[in-house]
């Protein structure tokens, strides 16, 4: 059992004398990173080596510090969503959702039930893409290039769905305070079902390639072990903590959104080595798919039936009419939305946004159609105005792909955040990295580091 409060010894070299020849050896200081293929992103691990064995290690971070918290204070509550995308950039929707839930908690509002279901579906898709990337990258670094290529293919299926829904593959900014940017496009849920089948098939193929593969098992079994108590005391959460044997998942312990309506299991490991972390992630992907299928069945509100028998007009015609002041009957007509903007029309927007005029942007038909909505839109967008939560502070946390992602927000009543602190799950995981690699060999650093799924955007913020 490793004593968590003992810090690694500072890198003094240890000298040893070999009896037979009278030669002396000395330990070596090796710098791994920051620009290193296995240090996804940029981490520097300063290791002291005795031959190939790691005697002590020190982790240096901060090479991707992009001042997220300072930017949030400058740009305003609603405009921080693109910055939150780039925190954990392999599961951007989860960061968006957690941040939006935090601001909604400060405001005391809650969006519609359909919005909650869509948020759950997008969170679980993000979880699957995160685990796909993690397993792919760590397999590639151990030499399993095929697993990487297959899992990237699976990730492409999901990226195409996300792009249909949000407009972007990676940095989505889909969630808004009080709801979402747009409702689901028509037929998206059926396509999601089909793509999930394809993704699960790829996961099964990679399972066959890796799980009982002698070489893979030799590299990852009993490597990078950490005990349950040490992990808990170091602040670990997420798949790494669950692989040590502790059954802690916020979706079960403190359910948020609509997770309490779904039936899913939480995989728990036994030993806390790299192999357990790999297995936990593979199983979590399958459980996420299970949650998504249940959500697809349970989601309220079917397709919006927009009556086009009246006098429909296209978006461009609506905008032109409004700019020329011909707004007399705009609100009576239905607008035919361009396919890339599907889901943003008035009826759809109402289904996924809270009815809170001080927070949610009015739909475009109303912005162009009547002056009150135009002023409402203006007050929400212009600098110095915007969403103004009442003064107070909250902490919101959700179960992100890496663990407990939390935001501590302080509002002073103005349109800009006073303080936003992001509690990144991998900050605490990296704190414990040196305990996991000490005693192992250099090659084990690569394996251990890969399965922790360090995302530098989140770690350094």
């Amino acid at each position, binding site marked *: 059992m490793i004593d968590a409060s003992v810090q690694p010894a500072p890198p003094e070299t240890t000298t040893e004398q070999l009896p037979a020849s009278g030669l002396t050896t000395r330990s070596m200081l090796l710098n791994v990173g920051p*620009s290193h293929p296995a240090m996804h992103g940029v981490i520097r691990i300063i290791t002291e080596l005795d031959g190939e064995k790691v005697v002590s290690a020190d982790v240096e971070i901060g090479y991707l510090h992009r*001042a997220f918290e300072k930017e949030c204070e400058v740009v305003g509550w609603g405009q921080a969503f693109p910055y939150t995308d780039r925190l954990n950039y*392999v599961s951007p929707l989860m960061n968006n959702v957690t941040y939006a839930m935090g601001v909604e908690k400060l405001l005391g509002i809650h969006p519609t039930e359909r919005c909650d279901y869509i948020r759950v579906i997008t969170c679980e898709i993000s979880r699957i893409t995160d685990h796909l990337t993690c397993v792919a990258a760590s397999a590639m670094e151990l030499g399993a290039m095929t697993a990487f290529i297959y899992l990237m293919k699976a990730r492409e299926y999901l990226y195409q769905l996300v792009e249909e829904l949000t407009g972007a593959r990676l940095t989505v900014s889909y969630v808004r305070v009080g709801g979402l940017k747009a409702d689901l496009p028509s037929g998206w849920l059926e396509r999601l079902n089909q793509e999930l089948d394809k993704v699960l098939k790829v996961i099964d193929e990679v399972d066959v390639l890796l799980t009982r593969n002698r070489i893979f098992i030799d590299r990852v079994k009993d490597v990078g072990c950490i005990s349950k108590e040490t992990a808990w005391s170091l602040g670990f959460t997420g798949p790494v903590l669950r692989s040590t044997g502790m059954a802690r998942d916020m979706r079960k312990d403190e359910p948020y959104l609509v997770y309490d309506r779904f039936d899913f299991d939480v995989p728990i490991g036994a030993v806390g080595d790299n192999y357990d972390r790999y297995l936990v992630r593979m199983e979590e992907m399958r459980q996420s798919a299970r949650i998504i299928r249940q959500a697809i069945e349970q989601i309220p509100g079917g397709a919006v039936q927009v009556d086009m028998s009246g006098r429909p007009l296209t978006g461009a015609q609506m905008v032109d009419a409004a700019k020329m002041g011909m707004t007399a009957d705009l609100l009576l007509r239905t607008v035919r939305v361009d396919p890339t903007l599907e889901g943003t029309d008035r009826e759809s927007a109402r289904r996924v946004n809270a009815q809170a005029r001080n927070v949610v942007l009015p739909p475009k038909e109303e912005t162009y159609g009547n002056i009150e909505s135009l002023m409402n839109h203006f007050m929400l967008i212009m600098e110095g105005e915007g969403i103004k939560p009442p003064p107070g502070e909250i902490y919101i946390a959700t179960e992100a792909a890496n663990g407990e992602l939390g935001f501590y927000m302080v509002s002073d009543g103005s349109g800009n955040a006073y303080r936003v602190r992001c509690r990144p799950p991998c900050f605490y995981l990296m704190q414990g990295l040196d305990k996991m690699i000490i005693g192992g060999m250099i090659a084990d650093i690569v394996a251990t580091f890969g399965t922790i799924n360090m995302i530098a955007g989140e770690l350094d913020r």
Partner: protein
Amino acid sequence: MGVGGEAPGFFTSRLSDSIAWARKWSLFPYPFVTACCGMEYMSVASAHYDLDRFGAAWPRFTPRQADMLLVVGTISHKMAPILRRVYEQMCDPKWVVAFGVCTCTGGFYDNYSTVQGIDRIIPVDCYIPGCPPRPETVLDAIMKLQSKIQKQRHGLTGMVESPLRDRSGTIA
């Protein structure tokens, strides 16, 4: 021959064309990956959008063996000296591609920790905007880089005349 102010003759320009053809179809990228653009780089390098068709599939993870420095993702001031050192460790001929808007101009990170464009640290040959750029954009950029390489003058001595260097060969 080939370097300096000499006018190209028929054989030197044919030689330059063939050396350029060889170089542009066998780029060895060094992916200096830091942030989110790295995910799009992984997509570009994978099967769907294939970087292998340019001969640039195999990343060389040591600057000594690479000739294309792909700077992928935001460079902070803490990372800047390391980027400079990696660039200096690469041998000529070398090309630098700024992948993503954070490397072009700093992106929307106008703050105390981000370098506002890597051309403040190293000379850049190709800028790829986008946050992150779609894989098709990256492929288009590689094609533009290839046409740039084709138009540069290559000689048997191996020196490439780059417009970013002055005549004495020092880096601008």
